[in-house]
């Protein structure tokens, strides 16, 4: 495996009296697909926002792509892509207008934008709807487009915050093919999800419960460790240790 690209050391975020993220420590290697799992409200989104430079940490340290999350956030932003939980494309713009806009503000050249646009339209099979408004597209298509737009500037890392929630199983599969393709091209993928079948696709997984990372390993070793046959069982055992399955 390559070198470390994300490193967090006792990273915390406290809102008033509520500790959203409690001293998490982990590292992610280059071109890895890193699954960031946890129940709703476990602190995944807060952690992602700190790593992408959207939110200042309260304490702890972290480096993303070699830059510090406290005072080099703009350098981080040049090297990452991000697909937020909330819908990030402009619904009142067309497919090509969205591609052009995001490519443009990342500073891609005009010819490169043209190239990327036709490449994406072809890859995602959006030829017929390239001039349709985003709001007229089904959710699954939008999410695939949003992912492709998030990596349009060929970042080192892409952060995906629950990219497949509400998407049908077939589209989810296609979505994961896109993720594999990105990882194959050398982009590190940092992804949160609640779908445990998706967790199986990750190289390594961290499990977050109440702001803390409770476990971190490959899916196989986690299953062994918790004596479970699926990731689903691992998750339930960890998130609700007192309940029987």
């Amino acid at each position: 495996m390559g070198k470390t690209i994300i490193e967090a050391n006792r990273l915390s975020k406290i809102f008033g009296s509520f500790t959203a993220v409690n001293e998490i420590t982990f590292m992610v290697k280059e071109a890895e697909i890193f699954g960031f799992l946890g129940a709703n409200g476990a602190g995944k989104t807060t952690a992602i926002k700190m790593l992408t430079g959207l939110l200042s940490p309260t304490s702890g340290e972290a480096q993303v792509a070699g830059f510090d999350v406290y005072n080099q956030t703009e350098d981080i932003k040049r090297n990452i892509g991000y697909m937020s939980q909330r819908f990030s494309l402009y619904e009142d713009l067309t497919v090509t207008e969205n591609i052009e806009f995001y490519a443009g503000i990342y500073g891609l050249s005009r010819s490169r934008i043209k190239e990327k646009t036709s490449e994406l339209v072809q890859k995602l099979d959006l030829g017929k709807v390239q001039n349709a408004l985003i709001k007229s597209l089904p959710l699954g298509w939008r999410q695939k487009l949003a992912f492709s737009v998030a990596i349009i500037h060929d970042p080192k890392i892409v952060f995906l915050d629950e990219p497949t929630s509400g998407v049908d199983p077939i589209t989810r599969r296609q979505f994961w093919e896109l993720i594999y393709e990105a990882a194959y091209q050398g982009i590190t993928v940092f992804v949160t999800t609640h779908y445990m079948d998706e967790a199986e696709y990750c190289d390594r997984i961290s499990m977050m419960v109440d702001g803390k990372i409770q476990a971190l390993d490959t899916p196989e070793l986690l299953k062994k460790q918790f004596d479970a046959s699926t990731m689903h069982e691992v998750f339930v055992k960890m998130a609700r240790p007192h309940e029987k399955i």
Partner: protein
Amino acid sequence: MRIIYYLVKKELLQIFRNKGMLPIIFVIPIIQLVILSNAADFEIKNLKLYFIDNDHSAFSRLLQSKLEGSQYFMITGSGLGSQNGDAAMQNDLADLVIELPRGFEKKLMREGFDKIQLRINAIDGTKAGLASIYASEVISDYNREIRDRYGASRSLILDHTEGNKIEITYSNWYNPDLNYKTFMVPGILVLLVTMIGAFLSSMNIVREKEIGTIEQINVTPIKKHQFIIGKLFPFWLLGLVELSIGFLIAWLVFEVPFIGNIFLLYGFAALYLLLILGMGLFISTLTQTQQQAMFISWFFLVVFILMSGLFTAIENMPVWAQKVTLFNPIRYFIEVVRMVMLKGSGLFEVRWHILIVLLYAIALNGLAVFRYRKTV
């Protein structure tokens, strides 16, 4: 620069694609300009006059016909006795009552003077003041005629004042016909452009916060000033286009004269729009929902509009309020529009206005850039 180009392009696409907003931006202000300019008319004509003639003489009839002949009054009733006049005033059938006493002609001929009574409904102070001035004007004209006909010693005394010995002649500069539209249209145009600019810009960034797209922008390496300029420029362009349409209407429909230098006015408008849009964007960075942004802008706009000098002269305000108007951007634009359009003032005369608006614009846009946070 290229990044700003993409931001501006996206913003313009969104504006022109929004079928709900487009008429609000272009059609409604034009309709408002036409309607408001015709309605906001301070000129008072056709005051309702109740004429009580207790004398029924040649003299009293002369006064009545003089009042009737003036463009200010419309005799809506006449009768005998004070109480009829009072009733008419009470029922809003009269704005003023003029009562001539019995034996008016006789006294005027024998003793050389008499008094008549003028009662004015003063609920609206401005209107009452004008009614009194107009009535005095007609009556002094009447006095002059009587003196000419019957000798210098005879005159009518109104309100204990001597008949006018000094004649006043008026000369109305810059608006010779006292046309209120000439005075109001440029001012109303300023208000409309201000409102559109302030509302659109104040709701813009906060709208992206509501939808969630701002997060996607904040995670790009875009610079804060690039973002603010990208938001500012489309609305600035829109404001200038809108202003041009307004000027065209002022010129074609209302025939407002344009004496000064049009480029000076555009230059000032361009600066002024930067100020207003900066204010809107600053509000947008402070708020979390479009509703909050709307209320805050509305609050400031109402204060600014009422204290702009358009509806009430700034000179008539108490001293503290006059000082408050120094912070009112609309005040400066209204002054400049009137100075340049109607008086033909040049760059030198409006230099302070330019300086103040420039500094104000820099301050507000600076605040907007400062307050816009990419990292919370």
